[in-house]
């Protein structure tokens, strides 16, 4: 069932056991799992069926530190959530992303990749993916990895009919849960905002917060403040260890043979370090996105010359007024080192229309990350030399220690951490089952539970974790 307003929902006699906040990839996936298990579940979506400026306005916020996107454009507040602007890139976090890195504090998950692998067949169905091929080591240091450009499922569109016909799922649009109330052991209810005004309290046996990698922290921080610590009793890490995938053009490459690496439909291939390389150099995971732009004719000659005489080739290209320094661009995205001070805070001065403090995001990149991409591009360049595949040039800003460019992508719109998973209650918010520490009936879904970010786009892992949480809740909640 889909209700376009809370008022319409209230007129029904639907009695949910579980309340999910948010209808993005995590919320929708968990709802479908619970609905399939015969468990009545209500999904409260703050937005409507379509994008609106009025809804997005609730997402405004500020950023302190490194340049970042406006917080009301880096995510979407309507049915299907941020899947509505997802580019569709798919890959699951690497096995080593779940393991602690001894050289990077606060890394490692309480679960392993094997814990989510049983759910990957479901993920492939949901995201309409072919099977992943295994990584291909091209040297001791570099793996040729696969990111699948999927059809970019819009969860709202894809599952609207299914949700509408479901007897066990009620999706309620235009209904904003402004805060949860709790007594330190259980969530006792939610406060709702609908149709421009307070809509009273809402209760259910279980609450699952799936409002996104920024909003999950905001809701829980505000709820905890209002409940005097009754919603997240162990709140030291709440909002902290927030992560992104910074993304910049880091270099160029000349390839001797452009058929060496099979590229996808948009001429891209991806490379990451081996665990041995990360351990030896004490760097984080990274992804190099090679975008081929092969030349023909004399341009190809210049590119060939650049393999052995780069300065000369560059000089010729300049004289010919051609940007022919390379035949491929290398974009780098990387795993951020988890840092407690990269955090979501509540604004002390600015609130949204419902009176909820807006986000103040504190975010900075670390010197370790800078070293990661510099060493990473050197590793990739060395690998191309060793295998006689081509040559790499590192961009001036990176090679010469200049500031990060401010006119590029900046990051991936991937919001991770803030309610991270763990066993240490001072450094995590949820346990291995995504249950908030100390609370009997409060769970968190989505990338805010990520302990580390890996280098790949998060939606595949988000969906796998949601399948796992849905499976777990089906057993916990029962019929």
């Amino acid at each position, binding site marked *: 069932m889909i209700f376009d307003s809370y008022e319409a929902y209230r007129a029904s006699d639907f009695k949910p056991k579980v309340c999910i906040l948010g209808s993005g990839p995590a919320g929708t996936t968990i709802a479908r799992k619970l609905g399939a298990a015969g468990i009545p579940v209500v999904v409260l979506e703050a937005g409507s069926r379509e994008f609106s400026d009025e809804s997005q306005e609730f997402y405004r916020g500020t950023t302190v530190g490194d340049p970042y996107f406006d917080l009301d454009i880096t995510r979407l507040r309507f049915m299907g959530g941020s899947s509505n602007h997802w580019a569709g890139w798919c890959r699951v976090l690497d096995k080593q992303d779940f393991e602690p890195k001894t050289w990077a504090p606060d890394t490692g998950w309480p679960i392993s990749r094997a814990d989510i692998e049983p759910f990957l067949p479901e993920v492939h169905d949901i995201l309409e993916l072919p099977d992943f091929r295994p990584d291909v080591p091209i040297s001791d240091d570099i793996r040729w990895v696969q990111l699948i450009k999927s059809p970019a499922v819009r969860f709202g569109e894809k599952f609207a009919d299914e949700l509408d016909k479901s007897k066990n799922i009620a999706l309620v649009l235009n209904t904003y849960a402004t805060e949860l109330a709790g007594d330190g052991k259980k969530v006792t209810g939610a406060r709702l905002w609908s149709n421009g005004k307070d809509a009273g309290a809402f209760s259910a046996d279980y609450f699952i917060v799936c409002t996104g990698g920024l909003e999950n922290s905001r809701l829980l921080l505000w709820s905890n403040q209002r409940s005097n610590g009754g919603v997240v009793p162990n709140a030291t890490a709440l909002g902290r260890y927030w992560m992104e995938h910074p993304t910049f053009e880091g*270099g160029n490459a000349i390839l001797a043979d452009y058929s060496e690496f099979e590229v996808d439909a948009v001429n891209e291939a991806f490379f990451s370090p081996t665990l041995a390389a990360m351990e030896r150099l004490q760097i984080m995971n990274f992804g190099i996105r090679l975008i081929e732009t092969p030349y023909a004719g004399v341009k190809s000659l210049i590119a060939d*010359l650049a393999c*052995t005489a*780069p*300065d*000369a080739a560059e000089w010729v290209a300049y004289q010919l007024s051609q940007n022919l320094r390379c035949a491929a661009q290398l974009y780098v995205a990387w795993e951020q080192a988890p840092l407690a001070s990269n955090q979501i805070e509540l604004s002390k001065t600015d609130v949204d229309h419902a009176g909820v403090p807006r986000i103040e995001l504190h975010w900075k990149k670390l010197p370790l990350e800078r070293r990661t991409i510099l060493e990473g591009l050197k590793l990739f*360049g060395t690998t191309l*030399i060793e295998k006689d595949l081509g040559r790499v040039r590192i961009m001036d800003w990176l*090679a010469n220690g200049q500031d990060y460019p401010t006119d590029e992508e900046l990051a991936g719109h991937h919001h991770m951490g803030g309610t991270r998973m763990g066993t240490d209650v001072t450094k995590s918010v949820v346990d291995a089952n995504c249950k908030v520490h100390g609370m009997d009936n409060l769970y968190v879904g989505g990338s805010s539970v990520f302990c580390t970010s890996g280098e790949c786009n998060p939606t595949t892992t988000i969906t796998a974790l949601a399948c796992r949480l849905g499976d777990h809740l089906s057993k916990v909640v029962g019929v």
Partner: protein
Amino acid sequence: MSFFIKKISRRAIMQALIAMPALQLFRKLPDSDRPDADPDEIVVVNGWVLKRSDLA
């Protein structure tokens, strides 16, 4: 120089450049006169990740 370049074909320019030992003039060679230099050593020159023999 730009005027001269535009008056001749690109292929001619390339052929001349490839043949010209004067290419050295456009290169910055780190320790190029070191007699014990390993030709397979990885060096970074103007951001390029190269092996030393690329510069020979």
